């Protein structure tokens, strides 16, 4: 199964090779979607964890023991359906094609699972229909 979480590292855990431990000890693949990590600062990592359900739970429990804060509610892109005019301009800047146009109806389609929350679509939208939920 897959689980998307936001990990917040206290300063002292920034040096820990977290993704290595997740892979080695729990057989959990961590796909890093966003990262903000610097020496001696609180770090943030948005990761999509995939692995066996039991091992995933064990991995999350281990992260908690390391005092890494786990938040399931990661930042998400929200589209205001009333404001959107389906022009499609955002589809040209979306690196993962999470935003695309239906080739028959030319309506905007947002595939949330592909979104890496890079937020490039937000300033691109000419009618300010795209925002994050935080």
């Amino acid at each position, binding site marked *: 199964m897959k689980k998307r979480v936001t990990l917040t590292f206290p300063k002292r855990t920034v040096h820990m090779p977290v993704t290595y431990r997740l892979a080695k000890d729990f057989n959990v693949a961590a796909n890093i979607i966003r990262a903000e990590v610097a020496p001696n600062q609180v770090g943030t990592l948005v990761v999509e964890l995939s692995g066996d359900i039991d091992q995933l739970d064990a991995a999350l429990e281990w992260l908690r023991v390391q005092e890494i804060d786990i938040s399931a509610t990661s930042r998400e892109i929200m589209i205001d359906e009333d404001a959107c005019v389906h022009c499609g*301009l955002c589809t040209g*800047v979306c690196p993962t094609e999470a935003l695309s146009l239906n080739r028959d109806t030319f309506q905007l389609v947002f595939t949330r699972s592909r979104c890496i929350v890079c937020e490039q679509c937000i300033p691109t939208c000419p009618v300010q229909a795209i925002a994050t939920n935080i």
Partner: protein
Amino acid sequence: MRTIDEINEKIQAKRAVVWTVEELKANVVEMGVKKVAQMVDVVTTGTFEPMESSGAILNLGQPDPPIKIRQCWLDGVAAYAGFGAVDLYLGASQSADYSGSGEVSDLEELREMRSRSPQQELGGGHVIADLIAGKPVKLRAIGQVTDCYPRASIETTITRDTINQFYLYNPRNLYQNFIVGVNGGDRPLFTYLGPLQPQLGNAVFSNPGALSPLLNDPDLQVVGIGSRIFLGGGIGYVAWEGTQHFPLQKRLPNRTPIGPAATLALIGDAKQMDARWVRGCYFKSYGPSLMLGIGVPLPVLNETVVERCAVRDEDLVAPVVDFAIPRRVRPNFGLVSYAQLKSGQITIDGKRVRVAPLASIFLARQVAETLKQWIEQGEFTLTQPVASLPSDRPFLAQDRWGAQINLE
């Protein structure tokens, strides 16, 4: 084959056969031009795209004592006041500008009123859209005190129902074809086509192609001055040729132009428009604009009308222009078809480039469909143009200040 009068009789009797231009294209493939021309009376086209050369004329009505307005701001956006006392012209691409218009506290109050976050950019297009949506708009004006008009200033709130005239007069709308923007440089560019990423990171086109009104009447044979149209959800008219009208653009054998060509000036009562089809918009680091839904009915007077309307995205092209060269004439990477553009990907110099539209094809179709319903229900009749649009306008450039070197 038919006259406009005959078509109007059928419309009033609710017997007119009306197809959207997409229905017509599909039926021509099935049945051929001749048969289709016998069956259909009116074809509806539509577009929904940013048209920054749009604006609203407003007459406020006089306060007591009266004022001769010389400077004026609507929600902080300057409107032109160099007409008779309380006539204003608000341009869609005018940015909010508070200099000389009062205190900072007013700006904050205003922003709160509009419940927009402070970093969101506001312009004439948003104010026009707000008025059409029935929202209140704050007005501040400075007058020239004269014996006729003693008042020096006024601050008030207006809505579309508290002013006399409120109509759009758009000097340049409905571009017959446009360009495809790309960026061959090494830094991101912020353009009227939205962000263009470096190293040909993306491409943007802004015309809906085969749905577009003037690409279906390439020589402006049935659209002329006085043609009644769907403008922003209300009824409008073709007022004149548009600015930069360039019918002499190079054309394909199907008569469609290979780049920007004809344009139209449009006029219509904004009080009857619908906010659904009139949206303020803003392009990051470029400025505000106005997105408009416009539909044009094409009367099937003869087979040539059907033949021209049968044109498909495969038969229409636009030039791919490199915005990295900051000149009037920018280098281009050749022509691509609208079928390629709508596939979401083109190839430039062997590189695959993602393409996004800027015209809403989804809403353009709804415009054509809505206009079709109006005509079918007998609510919208066609007009005979009172004059043709010029077919021989050159496209002049302002070069006289520089060295006269002909590079051709």
